[in-house]
């Protein structure tokens, strides 16, 4: 293989993996605060469609990303109100968010399927994805706020007893996760594709959720996991392009099967999962009266 080919593949891997990093790191922050949001796929889709439609209407990339992030804040805000104030089941609420997002994005984007746009260069976002992982890692392990957030995720009762506002911290963590998912979606519809198609995130939101488990809730490992997944996906496409005599569907399955295999390898060590997962994950917080 020539150097050019390797560099070419490396470029494609970087561009394809970036949305997984955004969604993964967003969900990681949400989960660190003790909340599991299964609405990643729905928030990514709504983020993707709002960015795309805004870009077509206004022609401004800035507005496109701004409105998209706002959509992520609103969608995750809805989730936050339900799980934090109404103490609803986090798993069911997250699923509802995804179903709602699938419907909403299809409806908003109906008129815009196939509309051509000028895609934006992805490189700023590729670099930004590394920066944000570094920042999150710094926030968690070098700042007091990060320590408080982790404490809320480990034991909300202790954090509450120490005088920290569990609800406020979880609310902000959920909003951060939502805006990162929207960013991942808008990156897909404006930089990566660039186009709008129903269900275009193609399960990346769910892979992002798996990434958090893979990373055992450590920010920098999200990066490693995302690049393994991204690499497998691109490798599969390249092997297919080389014309291997093997049905394409089996290659298309590869990322999903790889996710299962990786989850099995990571989770089989019960102690490690128990020590790494935020202890209050999915538990509702009720402060009594």
């Amino acid at each position, binding site marked *: 293989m020539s150097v050019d080919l390797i560099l070419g593949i490396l470029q494609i891997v970087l561009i394809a993996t970036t949305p997984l990093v955004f969604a993964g790191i967003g969900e990681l922050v949400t989960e660190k605060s003790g909340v599991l949001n*299964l609405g990643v796929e729905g928030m990514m889709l709504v983020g993707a469609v709002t960015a795309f439609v805004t870009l077509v209407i206004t022609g401004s990339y800035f507005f496109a990303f701004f409105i998209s992030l706002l959509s992520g804040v609103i969608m995750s805000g*809805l989730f936050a109100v*339900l799980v934090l104030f*109404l*103490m*609803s*089941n986090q*798993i*069911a*609420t997250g*699923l*509802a*968010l995804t*179903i*709602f*997002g*699938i*419907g*909403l*994005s*299809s*409806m908003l984007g*109906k008129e815009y399927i196939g509309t051509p746009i000028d895609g934006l260069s992805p490189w700023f976002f590729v670099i930004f994805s590394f920066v944000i992982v570094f920042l999150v890692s710094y926030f968690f392990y070098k700042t007091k706020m990060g320590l408080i957030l982790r404490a809320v995720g480990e034991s909300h009762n202790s954090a509450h007893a120490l005088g920290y506002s569990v609800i406020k911290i979880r609310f902000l963590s959920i909003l951060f996760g939502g805006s990162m998912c929207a960013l991942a979606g808008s990156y897909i519809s404006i930089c990566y594709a660039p186009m709008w198609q*129903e269900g275009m995130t193609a*399960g990346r939101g*769910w892979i992002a*959720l*798996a990434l958090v*488990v893979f990373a055992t809730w450590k920010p920098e490992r999200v990066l490693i996991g995302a690049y393994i997944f991204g690499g497998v996906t691109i490798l599969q496409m390249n092997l297919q392009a080389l014309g291997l005599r093997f*049905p394409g*569907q*089996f290659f*298309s*399955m590869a990322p*999903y*099967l790889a*996710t*299962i295999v990786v*989850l*099995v390898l990571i*989770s*089989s060590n*019960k102690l490690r*999962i128990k020590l790494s997962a935020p202890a209050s994950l999915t538990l509702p917080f*009720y402060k*009594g*009266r």
Partner: protein
Amino acid sequence: MNNFLPIIVSRSQTSNIMNFFVPIIAIFLTLITGFIIFLLLGFDPFYALYTFFISPISSSYGISELLVKATPLALIAIGLAFCFKNNIYNIGAEGQLTMGAIFGGGIGILFHDTNTFWLLPVMIFAGAIGGAIWGLIPALLKTKFNTNEILTSLMLVYVALFILDFLVVGPWKDPNGFSFPKSRAFSDSGRMPLLFDGLRVHFGLIITIFLIFVSWFVFSKTMFGFQLKVSGFSPKAARYAGFNQTTLIFLAFGICGAFAGIAGLSEVSGPIGLLYRDISPNYGFTAIIVAFLGRLHPVGIIFASLIIALTYLGAEDAQLFLQIPSAVGFIFQGLVLFYLLGAELLINYKLSFKRT
């Protein structure tokens, strides 16, 4: 703190009245939200809601279509109740449905020129086996490797869909099908008998009702049903009582998978009659909403399946008459679940204006 907002007070006992009213509150709020959405979109909201929720079922054909859609939804949802009651989050019913369709449909394709009485029962059995196998994989991974069943069951949905896609464009493609990605049609004896002439409602409905009845019996009259309930309420109490959680996980996943598999088979051998790519409009995912809306209770699930089936029909009509994309059906489904989950607060807590 202000004194106008009510505060939330924990109930000493869950409220049975609220358990009954919460789904009704959720549906009512969804209708109000739908009214506002249609108003904002510039439609006459009364006409839009009529088109969405009334006109689809104002004929015998409409009622039959409602039952056709409710049949798989109710069957999958009652299967999911076995899992959800025990806090096992199987969200891969869509994959189990697909596998059931592949296994049962495979038998149908193999015997496409055979007309005999035993063909349909064998197909149904194969469908149940296919779905159960697909459901037991996450159960095995969960019990043996401690793997999160939410993610594995979901990943297997994509795998099952690709297997179906491979089969209908590859080895199982209809040789006379002008290269369309579909299989041969099943023989007449491989099809679900129709219940009424000229209507599409089929024998799958009878199977669903029968299995819902069996499930009701299991939930309320057997030791297994009791164990599921106890493990769901308090895993510690269940362990103390010596219930085997591993067995419960396998049974719940196996039953749920088998039910979803039968639902998939009854779709392909009912209204469809062959295998192709899009056998299910997300029934496996939507059934999750049905299960919650029906509060995991057999009777509740029957009503919930009819209501959610109506959102499918309403969405089709809305697309036809109002030029609204049919995806609006998913919006209603998402909304009803949001409201339901929010209103569930009233079961375990009460609102109080009194200050202490």
